[in-house]
């Protein structure tokens, strides 16, 4: 057992972890972050995406101790205004179906927009290519991001 300390959604937290504890398990089991979903357990689907020091990572293939001294943000830790803006775009554009992949997409999108506020469609698709979605066919997710990148973007026609 090792004690680690990190910032989780803006809060300083500590945890006792074993060497092999996965970050996703620590987040879900010790901190009740059930918004972090496990879809594959091998870092392929992106449902467990969190932001580690602002960068999207798959928490199912990280050890918990790798978060030590760093900041971890889940979808629940996004600033309210920012979350509601993303929510509005995703809901308005019909980018959500079963929703299991959605929190992971939201974080990849946030990371993209933080580093590149005006991405092209190609950049959008590349930025979310580590997040698999089996329901939407991705088109409406891309449209939601495009809406977010348009200054004062209006809800798009279907």
């Amino acid at each position, binding site marked *: 057992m090792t004690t680690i300390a990190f910032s989780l959604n803006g809060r300083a937290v500590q945890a006792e972890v074993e060497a092999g504890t996965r970050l996703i398990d620590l987040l879900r089991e010790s901190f009740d972050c059930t918004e972090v979903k496990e879809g*594959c357990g091998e870092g392929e689907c992106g449902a467990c995406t969190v932001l580690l020091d602002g960068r999207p990572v798959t928490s199912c293939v990280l050890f918990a101790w790798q978060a030590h001294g760093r900041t971890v943000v889940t*979808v629940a830790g996004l600033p309210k205004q920012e979350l509601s803006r993303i929510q509005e775009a995703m809901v308005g554009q019909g980018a959500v179906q079963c*929703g*299991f992949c959605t929190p992971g997409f939201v974080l990849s999108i946030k990371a993209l927009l933080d580093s590149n506020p005006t991405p092209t469609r190609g950049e959008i698709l590349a930025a979310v*290519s580590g997040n698999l979605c089996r329901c939407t066919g991705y088109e409406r997710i891309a449209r939601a991001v495009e809406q977010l990148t348009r200054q004062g973007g209006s809800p798009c026609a*279907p």
Partner: protein
Amino acid sequence: MSDTSRLNVIGRPLPRVDALEKVDGKARYVDDYRIEGLVHCAMTLSPHPHAEVLSIRTDEALAVPGVLGVFTAPDVPVNQIGCVFQDQPLLAAERVRFVGDRVALVVAKTRDIARKAAALVKVDYRPLPSVHDAEEALKDVAPKLHAQGNLLAHQKIRFGDAAACLAACDVVVEHEFEVNYQEHAYLEPQGALAVPEAGGGVTIAGSMQCPFYVQSGVARALGLDRNRVRVEQAVTGGGFGGKEEYPSEVAALAALAALATGRPAKLVFSRAEDFQISTKRHRMRMRYKVGADREGKLQAIYVTQFVDSGGYAGLSTVVAERANTTAAGPYFFPNAHVDTFIVYTNNLLGGAFRGFGNPQVTFAIEGMMERLAARLGMDPVELRRKNLLSEGMPLICGQALPPSAPSRDVLDTLAQRSDFDRLRAEALEFNRTHRFRRKGVGLALSMYGCCLHAGGQHLEGSGALVQVRADGSVEVNIGGTELGQGAFTVVAQIAAETLGADYARVRVLPTDTRMVADSGPTVASRTTIMSGNAVRAASLQIRSRLVELAASMLGCPSREVEVGNGAYRQVPVDPPALRPEVSASAPSPVTIDHPSSTISQANVRFPDLCMEAFRRKLHLAASGWYAPPPKPWDKDTGQGIAYSVYCFTGNVAVVEVDLIGGLVKVEKVFAVHDVGQVLNPVTLEGQVHGGIVQGMGWALSENLVLDKGRCLNPGFTDYLIPSSLDMPQMDATFVEEPYPDGPFGAKGIGEPSLISVPTAVALAAGDACGQLPDRLPVTPETVLRWTAKDGNGQ
């Protein structure tokens, strides 16, 4: 019904009712349920495709600290499960019949401990010869999986005399097709939670499409009355058919653990387990023979096809019945002979998957149309047009195609919308000027029987409960489920439209067996029609009570009350000259002392009306029920009324093929769907986009590889579902010809969205390489074989 101009809610791009909590991560999927005293389950699975179980030793697993119990076959009260045939053990006793057959269930304090202990259950097997091909399994020398032999069922269509007709046809084309499995790859794996209840019984929450299947499946396996099994659907992370029959097994295992330990128990599959042991789209082999006259008029079709069921029956016969009944696609054949053999093998379990047997036969019949056109020297689109079924014409099951069948509109719209001839010309031009890349264009049509087949019509009734609260908010329960497809959104729209309520204040509650009568499964693209009609029926009952009330409040006859836009208003229907007499005899308008009341002489807002109804003790709840008319069906000849209504679909795909690496990139897919009536253009288009990309995956990159029944690529690393970078440009168009028995004229879309996509994509890939594909998926290896053969890319 086709006039939607007066509708306020139906047909509008309204936001989903369940989307906000999915974006912020608060929606609770089964693994997100937190409950005191929870224990976790893990399974011990057979590594053999076929073996005798000689002994099972559980002592080592039981000795692991944190393990509460290890359960095997004798612990299962009724160890014979199965949706149609009860040929499957919940935990295998004497024999295992596929890699992944369960032999033990371990229950422990944590999932980690349970999984580690499950690996310590020692099973002594005596391997038996196994069989991995449906046709091989039918031979005398093949090892027998079940007492009855390996032929699970033989389904037929006998229409006219196909054999005699073929012998006399001008042109006969014959070909064999084979398609591989497809894994659903819903992002949320299978999972269920079972909570033991005081007084006996169990409450289940889980990821599922069919709570009533789960209820009956759990009750059966655990030897309980169904009223002791309450099932609530958790928010479900995708299904696509994969959560039709299978969750009954998952829930029964969790329930077994819960009842045996007296604690809430959860079983959630790992992704690898989900790949190996849950159901797949069936692998099929199809031999087609089609005859036509010289002008291209189809005369006869003769089909022999084999459906690989895997180790147990599951829903294979039901899936196969769709392949059997729609083997001829959307075309008219005066003679048809179809033999569909459903066969046990030691492979993975086949089961329900979006399209349900139809995508397989669509690949075959459309491949035949291409081959026939080539033989006749005809344009393949023209050949299709010439033979398309239209309303009133007989299908191969003898049924006259019922109304709402705009097959020609679908084809014409598709050709126009995609500018098909120009696409083909562009591809030819591209291919003339490129050496290592080729473009190809493919077109495919399909016909899908909406709702359940005649063989399953006993499950067809569906219910709803609608309750209007005094403040004008509305609660809806349906027997159907939400798995991402948007069912809750369209039923909320139907309730809001019918009641005149505010759509934003309609809540659709999680599907719960306690709230609605057994409504059958959420499958077969039936939920909009079935649950939608049930919600409409319930809402209409409440509405008629509210209309009476509004009439008395407005002082007008009830026939003058019109509902819409959040209010009940008086719209005089009588000639003006007669009106004074009516008003003179009417009671004076009611005054409502509700603070927000805005009653005017001719208008009462829905919330005010509801408050007044509450005060007057009106019953503002109703249950609705919808069941379509009976469908007579003769199993021996495959003749009768197969489905209540049909949906027509067309897809055009444009691909670019890299001749050096063999990769096929889908550039564009056009989709035209006959949906009766559009209820919500956003959720509808979302279904079409999802179907296109999932269908494309099966056509190209999703190649499940089995070695003696063991899946060699049980995960997203090697089983490649399309990512955002694979997404083509998509164009969805809808043809509206209202279905008279659908809610506001609507039909289903869930499955039609996928069915002809794989074929259009595969034909396009073939077109680029000058080939006609007969295997799915078309992998890079296929492309390289093609190009090596004809010397392209040299």
